[in-house]
């Protein structure tokens, strides 16, 4: 797990992008209930690294992030795109230790897609 930033740096209901040691980019979201989610930052439809700037919310109770480019919704739990199930974001493990957000270095959900 690598440290990203202070938990308090995140605005509830929004995300940030972080650059990982291997050069990959991760989007980390803090929801209104202070839960954290981390997914890959690259929009699989357009190829731009912008997922962290999407709006979060829920669809039928499932927490989602919506791509700011073409507005597809992705589950924050599984990474799967709710508008096209063949497409998914990678999901990263995320935790808070001593007020620091830490993200797993490698995707743990990739194998399932």
């Amino acid at each position, binding site marked *: 797990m690598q440290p990203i*930033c202070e938990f308090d740096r995140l605005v509830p*209901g929004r995300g940030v992008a*972080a650059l990982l040691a291997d050069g990959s980019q991760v989007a980390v979201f803090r929801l209104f209930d202070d839960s954290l989610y981390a997914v890959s930052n690259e929009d699989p439809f*357009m190829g*731009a690294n*912008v997922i962290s*700037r*999407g709006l979060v919310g829920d*669809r039928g109770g499932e927490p989602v992030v919506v791509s700011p480019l073409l507005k597809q*919704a992705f589950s924050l739990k599984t990474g799967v795109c709710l508008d096209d199930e063949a497409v998914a974001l990678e999901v990263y493990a995320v935790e808070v230790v001593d007020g620091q957000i830490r993200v797993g270095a490698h995707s743990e959900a990739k194998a399932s897609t």
Partner: protein
Amino acid sequence: MSKLVVIGDGMVGRRFLEAVTQRDPSWEVTVLCEEPRPAYDRVRLSAFFDGVSAEELSLASDLPGVEVRLGEAATEVDRAAKVVRSATGEYPYDKLVFATGSYAFVPPMEGKDLPGVFVYRTIEDLENIKAHAEGRRHGVVIGGGLLGLEAANALKLLGLETQIVEFAPWLMARQLDEAGGGILKQHIEKLGIGVDCSTGGTKIEAVDGRLRMDTNRDGVSYDTDLIIFAAGVRPRDQLARDCGIEVGERGGIITDLSCATSDPDVYAIGEVAAMEGMCYGLVAPGYAMAEVVADRLAGGEATFPGADMSTKLKLLGVDVAQFGAMEGPLSTTYLDPAHGTYAKLILSDDATTLLGGMLVGDAEPYPLLRASVGGKVPGKLADLLGGGEIEGALPDGAQVCSCNAVTKGEIMGAIHEGCHDVAELKTCTKAGTSCGSCIPMLKQLLAEGGVEVSKAVCEHFTQSRAELFDIVKVTGITTFSELITRYGTGSGCDLCKPAVASILASLSNGHILDGEQAALQDTNDHFLANMQRNGTYSVVPRIPGGEITPDKLIVIGEVAKEFDLYTKITGGQRIDMFGARVEDLPKIWRKLVDAGFESGHAYGKALRTVKSCVGTDWCRYGVQDSVKMAIDLELRYRGLRSPHKLKSAVSGCARECAEARGKDFGIIATEHGWNLYVGGNGGFTPRHADLLLSDVDSETLVRTIDRFLMFYISTADRLQRTSKWVESLEGGLDYLREVIVDDRLGICGELDALMAKHVENYADEWKGVIDDPEKLQRFVSFVNAPETPDPTIEFEEVRGQKFPAGTTERSQPVLLGTPVLRSSQGK
């Protein structure tokens, strides 16, 4: 080729030409038109005084094989030679159609030809009335029927004190009974128009540069400046009489049900025809006749289907409707003098079948009642009469749109075949495309057909945007979390969050990135710039009215150069800089703000630009200072958040160089002030804006735009442009005018206050960011590496500027027939 001559180019004549060219294009058609202009919408003639131009009333269109000879009156029909003559030509025919319409009836009264005495029939009449009314103060209208009330309205619009004089004992005696006429009179007098019934003019004389009309009542005479005869019309049948075609006792060319006259090669249609002896003064039966003759000329066997004489009008803001029979075995009435409403239903003797009726003051049940004539009474009498909730289904055969003869069955069929809204029904069935009075009925039938039009914003809120706006306004809630906890479910989404963010911003709740509001903003609002396909942003500083100094132009150039931005002139008279990295946005804006620029809100559902032409300062033609007005308006409404983007333009003269009629609100200068148009847009479905006000001063203009915008912001759906919003208002533009000009709902004070609050609280959003370290924090590519730009963003150079890498190769070069310049270098 067979020759067809049509005498007259009015509404019915024009409908006939369209029908005949469609069914049988082989006819060679000549139209002789006495008026100097082609067919226009005489039903809406009075709109001329509302500022609608003659061009806008025009019904003319180029039809193949049709020659229209304007200003050339037919003077003689020679049936033996089968030729029509005018002062200048001769037109042989195989078939001849009379569509000469009517003329205004003027009783034989002394003084009827004096200057200042007019009839109310053609655009020329209206132009003459308008010219004569200039600088005068009083007018008399003779006739209290439909036409008389229209004329009275016109005089009122021209600013004249107006008196109606009607010979019959009550107003609209042909459509209403005494009680209905009484209620109507009450409404009209409330508007400041005088009404004298049972009164007839006997003599007009010129006295001291004014007019005096004596009457049949002792001691009653009127001193006035202008008199309009609006006492009915008579068929223009003289030409037919002269050539020996049979005419009726009370005038009109006698026809059978195929519209043929006593000469089988000659037809008559519209108001000049006396079908089996009966003249029809409405346009719908005339249209039916036009279709009958077109069918006959194409070899068909059509006959006149009978006429629905029902009428529904809004006269001087008062609803009046009459349908079916005027009298019958049973009748039931409801009179409410307090609210000024009257309803009467005519029933069969067993009270089960509706035969007819009339409504004054409130015509809401009209579409249902009219469609039910001849069938079962569609509900409880008390509800029908007293304006209660009406339940009851129409039979399939009931005619819903009488103008275009569309039945309920046809409409339900169209709904089952996939029509989902009124617009689609209009296209598929033509219902609702003429007078529009059946549109509420269409909505009801859509609901009956199972088409549910949900106004819910999204799965988290069952309320419409307008309802949420009211909730926020009334409760004073300032956070999304409180709103969704109290009035919604779940945690929100990309639909409701920006909608609520916009509502909070419209109600002036501080900077859009303050506190929890930051979490609601769409990505563009969140970074106060427009995200492009590769994750970079475009930057658009405001350039009010499109006016910019050379120094400011240089600053934009310097900024673009320093940050290596692609630049393009936008359609809204400003400059867009593309390819800005998120971490560069604050640096770019620091320089722009220091040079005096503000956010252009190109990223927001907000006022974008107010374009202008060059106006009086430079242009030879300009009549008002359009640039100054555009700047004033843009500065007034800058930063105003709304359900969708707002665009505007100001043109300095009628040449309309700023394309104001393609805007949400457009202003065109006139000799006397400004015309205001609303509800236009470009985009996927372009629409010209409609005239809301004409010849108003700057103060009235701005006040009306304030109210228009705030009423729109308060009541529109999410992402509903003003054009769709205006169309969705029941009662349309007239209703809008009543609300924001006449203050019918009593909300203008509140709308004014909301706009005043917006103007007072405006602050530049970008300045608010660059002065706030906490807000600046988020403008980084990576939270853990704030100095590192996103390494995946790459550009390439095309046409001397940078573009996102990998996009340009996907598009093929544009092949034009221009010479290719080959470089000789290296050869």
